[in-house]
Structure formats: structure tokens, C-alpha cells
């Protein structure tokens, strides 16, 4: 069975059916793109997969477990992590704290142990700290560990969001427009980083992006939706030539 199995997902907002009959299947360590016109429902799919919205109908199975109706924090422990289209960092906390918060679930000491600063506190805090530094290092952000997240330049903020998502120890990572607002050069660097983390952490990645150089460059499989429905599934070559996709999304 695939890592993530989604069948016939549907959600309505009032009268509007934002996503309909959406199905996707992602294998371990696969890199999949999700594209489509603005307002097609891509972010909404993410929101359903991560428990932010409750789908009207449909099933989501992550690593063999049904996660529909679970709260977002719970879904994290099943192994899904995400970033947001509009960056949502813990702005007034330090960069390293942003990452350590995401490491929360891997730490076990209870409040009493914390208050009295028992050995378990020191031990786990040290592990968390070391791990956070290690993650930041991957993104070349070690020097920023103690600055406030809000003071980072935009591109670094996007990277921090990815690092933070990784700290939850996911099996699948969902990135919502990670290259938005980056120039082509920065996009290229981001592409390399994405590839790197996939291999280093051995995780699957689901990616929403409007920058075709990025999507076509690294995705193995792409799903295209329009008006909430899938209009095409295939590899980059197939997508590029699909007349429906060209008409609705790519243009000439």
C-alpha cells in the first residue's frame, strides 16, 4: 500500500464545492507535484490532508491509518507535515525555538520533571537542541539560530518553515508554493535543497507550485486540478503536452 492514499475527497464551502472527487496516491520517497489555476483548490487539498478542514466526504489513509476527522496536531504524529502558502512562523520566537517547538512530540519529559529540572529535562533538551542545530545547518541557517524569526529575510523564512516541518519527523512533507516570491536563482537553489532533504530524510514530498521550472524540474509525477477536479495526472512530459492543462493552466 502507498504511503498516502486519498480517495474521492470532497469539500463544500456553503454552496461552493471547492474540491471534488480528488484522489491521489503517493509512495514512500516519491516527489509529487500538485498544480492548477488559482482557486483550483490546491491549498484546500492540503488543508484537508492536514486536518485543518474536515472534508465533506472521502477517505485519507496515511501509512495505513485513516486520518479523516483527526485534529491537525494528531495528524502530525501520523507523519504528515506542511508549510503554508502565506508564511506562518512563530515570528517573535528565535529561529531555534521555532524548530524546537516542532520537536515537541519527540520529547517526553513531563511538567514536574521540567519544573524541577530533573536529568530527563537536561538530557532531552540537549538532544532537541543538537537536532535543531543540525537541521538549521542543512539550510545554511546555523548563524541565524538566535535571531527572531520575523527578522529573517523572506527567503530564509521560507526555509525555516521547511526546517520546522522537518523537525516533526514526517514521512510526508507538503510544501505550499515554497518558491513564491523568489527569483529564478533562488528558486534553483531551493530545488536543490528539496532534492537533498528528500534523500537525506527519506521522505515523500507533495509540492504545490506555480513556478514551472521548479515543478517540471524535480517532480516525478504531477496531478493537475481545475475547479476542484483532477484534469490530468502524469509525468512532466505528459503534463506539458496535455491540451486541457495548456488551456486551463499553462497557456501557450
Amino acid at each position: 500500500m502507498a504511503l498516502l492514499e486519498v480517495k474521492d475527497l470532497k469539500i463544500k464551502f456553503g454552496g461552493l464545492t471547492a474540491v471534488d472527487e480528488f484522489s491521489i496516491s503517493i509512495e514512500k520517497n516519491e516527489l509529487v507535484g500538485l498544480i492548477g489555476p488559482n482557486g483550483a483548490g490546491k491549498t484546500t487539498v492540503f488543508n484537508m490532508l492536514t486536518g485543518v478542514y474536515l472534508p465533506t466526504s472521502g477517505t485519507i489513509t496515511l501509512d495505513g491509518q485513516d486520518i479523516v476527522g483527526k485534529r491537525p496536531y494528531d495528524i502530525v504524529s501520523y507523519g504528515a507535515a506542511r508549510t503554508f502558502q502565506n508564511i506562518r512562523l512563530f515570528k517573535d520566537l528565535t529561529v531555534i525555538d521555532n524548530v524546537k517547538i516542532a520537536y515537541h512530540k519527540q520529547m517526553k519529559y513531563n511538567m514536574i520533571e521540567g519544573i524541577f529540572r530533573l536529568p530527563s529535562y537536561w538530557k532531552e533538551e540537549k538532544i532537541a537542541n543538537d537536532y535543531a542545530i543540525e537541521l538549521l545547518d542543512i539550510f545554511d541557517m546555523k548563524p541565524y539560530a538566535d535571531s527572531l524569526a520575523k527578522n529573517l529575510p523572506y527567503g530564509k523564512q521560507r526555509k525555516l518553515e521547511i526546517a520546522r516541518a522537518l523537525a516533526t519527523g514526517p514521512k510526508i512533507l507538503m510544501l505550499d508554493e515554497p518558491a513564491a516570491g523568489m527569483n529564478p536563482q533562488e528558486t534553483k537553489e531551493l530545488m536543490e535543497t528539496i532534492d537533498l532533504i528528500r534523500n537525506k530524510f527519506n521522505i515523500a514530498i507533495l509540492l504545490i507550485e506555480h513556478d514551472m521550472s521548479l515543478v517540471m524540474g524535480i517532480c516525478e509525477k504531477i496531478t493537475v486540478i481545475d475547479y476542484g477536479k483532477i484534469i490530468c495526472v502524469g509525468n512532466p512530459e505528459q503534463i506539458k503536452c496535455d491540451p486541457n492543462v495548456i488551456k486551463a493552466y499553462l497557456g501557450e
Partner: protein
Amino acid sequence: MLLIQQLINGLQVGSIYAVIALGYTMVYGIIKLINFAHGEVMMMGAYFAFLAAVAGMPIWAVFLISMVLSAILGMVIERVAYKPLRSAPRISSLITAIAMSLFLQNLALFIFKADPKVMPTIIKNNPVTIGSLQISNITIITFLVSVVFMVILTIFISKTKSGKAMRAVSQDTEAAMLMGINVNSTISLTFAIGSALAALGGILYAIAYTQVMPTMGLLPGLKAFVAAVLGGIGIIPGAMIGGFILGFIETLTKAYISSRWADAIVFGILIVVLSVKPTGILGKNIREKV
């Protein structure tokens, strides 16, 4: 019969809450600040009216003077205390508002002293009797005033250019500036209207309950805010509905349970309503788009 009489009694308080809540909700709607000093502006309005009435002015002048002076007071408060804090954390503005309310209250204490003043009878209490029921002319006036102003205000906000500018400012101040809207004067206008309404509520209150004193604004202010939240804060008709509901609940509690539980029951109902409908009765449930 007694029940109907009690409902009529509730209408009186409810209408006053409604008038005060209209101004409250409007100010909140535009700058998202719980203007705790609103009740004190109402109090000042009542004192202005008291002074004008004692000076023997005609009734229209009493209303006009009090509302104009309060409008100015409202604008000054905004300029001096709230404007510098527009980009500060919300809670700092809230504290400033609370401090401003304390300040005005103590200023009034200082100027007018603590003991209540008796409001001259500018509208004679002339109950209309229908069978065993009795309805005061003041109740009728207050009720009509609240409905009329609700309608005027609703039209003003949704249809006029200044009204739309207010909404634009409330949704995105910077973008509003980029449209060429003068944000400062728009906010001033909001405070002017809100404060004039507070004064109107204060005058009606003083006429109905015959006293003016420095602490008179505290509770009605709080209740009016509860009314505004109950109806859906920022929504003009909601303020009126909330005001009436609050008036009825309070009066019925006093009549059939006990006055001592009235405040607890009012807040209890607020809590129940918000638990079921977090944005109030008329509020729209907007899910945050992620």
C-alpha cells in the same frame, strides 16, 4: 398581564443599551478597539445635558449641545490617546482605553463631585395607560430613537461614500490610504458619530433614571458592549437586537428570579450564545482561510 408589563419595563432599559451599543459597535467595527471609555463619554454627555438643562436651555438645545460636545470629546480622546497606539499591540490600546475611562471618571468626580445630581425634568414623565398596563412616554421615545438611529446608521455605513470609506479603513488601513482616503479624518468621524450616540444614550438614561453621576457610565457601558457582542460585534442591527435581548433578560430576571442574579444570568447567556455561535447572533462564522 404582569409579564407583559415586565416586558415593557425591559424595553426601556433595552432601548438605552441599544443606543449606547450602536456607537460601541461602530467604533469597534472600524478600529477593532473595545473603547472602554465609551461609557464615560456617555456619562460626560449626560453631564453636558444636565448643565444645559440647568441653564434653562430648550430641549432641542440640550440634546444638540450635549451631542456636539461629546462628539468633540470623542474625537479628542481618539487623537490624544488612541492614535499614537494604532500600530501597538491590541492589548496596549485596550489598557489605554481602560485608563481613559478611569481618567474621565475621575475628572468628572473632580469637577462635579461624587454625589449624584438630579436631572431636571426636560421631558415630563407621562405614562400611557392601557388597561392595567403602563408605558412611559420616555420608554416610547427611547425605543423610537434607537430604531431610527439603527436604520440611519445602517444606511450611512453601507451606502454613503464616507460610510464605505470607514469600512475600507476597517478592512485594510494601508490599502485605504492608497485609495486616497484620509484615514485620520475617517477614524475621527467614526468617533464623532459613536460619541454623539453615546451622549444620546446618556441623555435618555438621565431622563429615564433622573440622576447623573461620575460612575454612571461604567455599567451601562459594559452592558452595551455585552449587547454588541451578543448581537455580533461590528454589526449595526446586531447591537440593537443585543440591546433589546439584554433588556428583556435583565428585567425578567429581576422580576421572576432575583435582581442579585441578573448580572450573572446576563453574562451566563452571553457565554452560552458565544459557545454556540462564537461570533454572536448576527455574526457570520468566517473560517480563517489558511
